[in-house]
């Protein structure tokens, strides 16, 4: 199995008005082809920041002080703005925590999924329309045609998350970064969305970087786990190993919460 994503010694600082606080301190992480890797940590620990750093979409106050991120052997920090735009959505895409705010409230779901296809594919209008319905169907939306014509606020939380997943996989990315994809859903829907992730990852040969605080989700989806605490990876390894034999007290604490 070859390596798809490698984060080397990544450090990120938050630049305040007159102070600099370091958020991530020398993070190392790798995702192999077709593998799902979980990045687990407490809230406010900078997990989302790592996800955004991969796409180079950090807020202006966040500064990468050192480190490199390689994707398919290419150093992302050496890519131009234009090359990054090509990579985003096409090679790496992201599923956000709160789909209600991640969708533009004034456009219909269908047209927002179509937007990704317009940018990254050469399909014509009609093909795009069909592809949108296909994608929604793939995301196990029961009535794709109707859902595509709805505005984000008209859908239930579960449906919105499915639509978000359809949008993320629209351009056949190699890597999907899922940032707390189920935290805002109730337990029954959570289970279904996780099952959907499992199915999609298999059907489309997608690798995943799962960012979460919920070890229950990790146990269900991830092949490898990286535990992040205070800006450092304190423990990593295959999911089974970690669950059977956690070494660090922080990991143990997290496991008690399941």
């Amino acid at each position, binding site marked *: 199995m070859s390596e798809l994503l490698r984060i080397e010694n990544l450090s990120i600082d938050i630049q305040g008005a007159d102070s600099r606080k370091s958020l991530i301190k020398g993070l190392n992480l790798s995702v192999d082809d077709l593998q799902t890797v979980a990045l687990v940590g407490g809230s406010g620990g900078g997990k989302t920041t790592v996800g*955004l750093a991969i796409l180079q*979409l950090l807020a202006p106050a966040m500064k990468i002080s050192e480190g490199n991120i390689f994707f398919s052997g290419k150093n992302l920090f050496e890519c131009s703005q234009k090359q990054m735009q090509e990579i985003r*959505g096409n090679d790496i*895409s992201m599923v956000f925590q709160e789909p209600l*705010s*991640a969708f533009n409230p004034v456009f219909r779901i269908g047209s927002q999924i179509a*937007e990704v296809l317009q940018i990254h594919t050469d399909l014509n209008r009609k093909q795009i329309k069909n592809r949108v319905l296909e994608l929604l169907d793939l995301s196990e939306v029961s009535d794709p045609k*109707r859902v595509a014509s709805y*505005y984000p606020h*008209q859908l239930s939380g579960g449906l919105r998350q499915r639509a978000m997943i359809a949008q993320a996989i629209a351009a056949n990315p190699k890597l999907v970064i899922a940032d707390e994809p189920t935290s805002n859903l109730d337990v029954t829907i959570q289970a279904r969305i996780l099952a959907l992730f499992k199915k999609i990852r298999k059907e489309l040969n997608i690798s995943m970087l799962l960012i979460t605080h919920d070890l229950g989700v990790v146990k269900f989806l991830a092949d490898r786990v990286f535990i992040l605490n205070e800006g450092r990876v304190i423990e990593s390894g295959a999911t089974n190993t970690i669950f059977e034999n956690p070494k660090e007290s922080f990991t143990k604490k997290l496991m008690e919460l399941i």
Partner: protein
Amino acid sequence: MIKKGLSPFQMAMATFRKNRLAIACVGILAVLYGSAIFAGFLSPYSYDNENREFSYCPPMKVHVIDSDRKLTRPYVNQMNLSFDKFHKRIYTEDKTKSFPIHFFIKGDSYKVIGLVPSTRHFFGVKVPGRLHLWGADSRGRDLLSRLLWGARISLSIGLIGVSISFFFGLLIGGISGYYGGKIDNLIMRMCEMIMMIPGFYLMLALRAAVPTEFNSLQVYIAIIVIFSFIGWASLARVIRGMAISLKQREYVLAAKALGVSDIKIITTHILPHTISYSIVAVMLSIPGYIMGESALSFLGLGIQDPYASWGNLLSEAMGIIQIKFSPWILLPGFFIFLTIICFNIIGDALRDALDPTLKSEGQS
């Protein structure tokens, strides 16, 4: 189950439709713009058809009962001009000579919507008769005809001017707010330079810079360009502020994460959210353009005789003598007033419909 979604715009339009006053204003504007488009057909004469013997002729009476007290087709009588001892013009109806009003009559040539040449007019009288339903001006040109022809210029200048300055205002404001930093600083200082100079004097100065040998069409375009040049700045400032707040929304980040380009994010994810503000601002700023053109033309700096605009028609009403003895030449002023009131009422109603948080006090 949820119904098929109404777009936010459709919901706003439903609210707007309940405002009867605003709907009435839309109707009035539709009539005004409609008659401006078909000015050539609706007006009995061309804008420059003059007859000095009808100088300041008062509005003619249309009769439907003839001298034998029988109902006939509408007609007007011949107007005879005489002077009293103070050289004041006195027009008297000559009951013996009458001219019936014909519909779809042949007259001055014009082009339908500027394309198809035609000589048919909706109504008129046969020569040698003359028809001045709303009176005539100093050179005996029909005021109704000139009002209709003038409406073309006065009403279109607002729409075209506003579209150009809003296009630039939105785009420049969006770019400024989205990128921030140096670009923002530069653009905003530029806006302030333009806004710093009092609008009317800037307008006069720019007008003076336009070559005098320009023909009327070129002057018309020059005026639009001048207005647009002044108008975009204030809008750009507001849009920039909105863009700064909108760019921090998560869907903008999500769009970036999907590889959407900057310019597309500005046009599809930021500017559409300023639309409720923009539509209202458009409606409320059109009167400014109409007033601006009227003011320029009133001062003789805008559209030149023989071409008509409501402003230069009104410039005939500068003296007390004219206003006192031929008050009908104030009619263009009434139409300017009517148009502006309509745009303002529609603007207010749209604001109430599009943005409930801005709803003005005391309205239900």
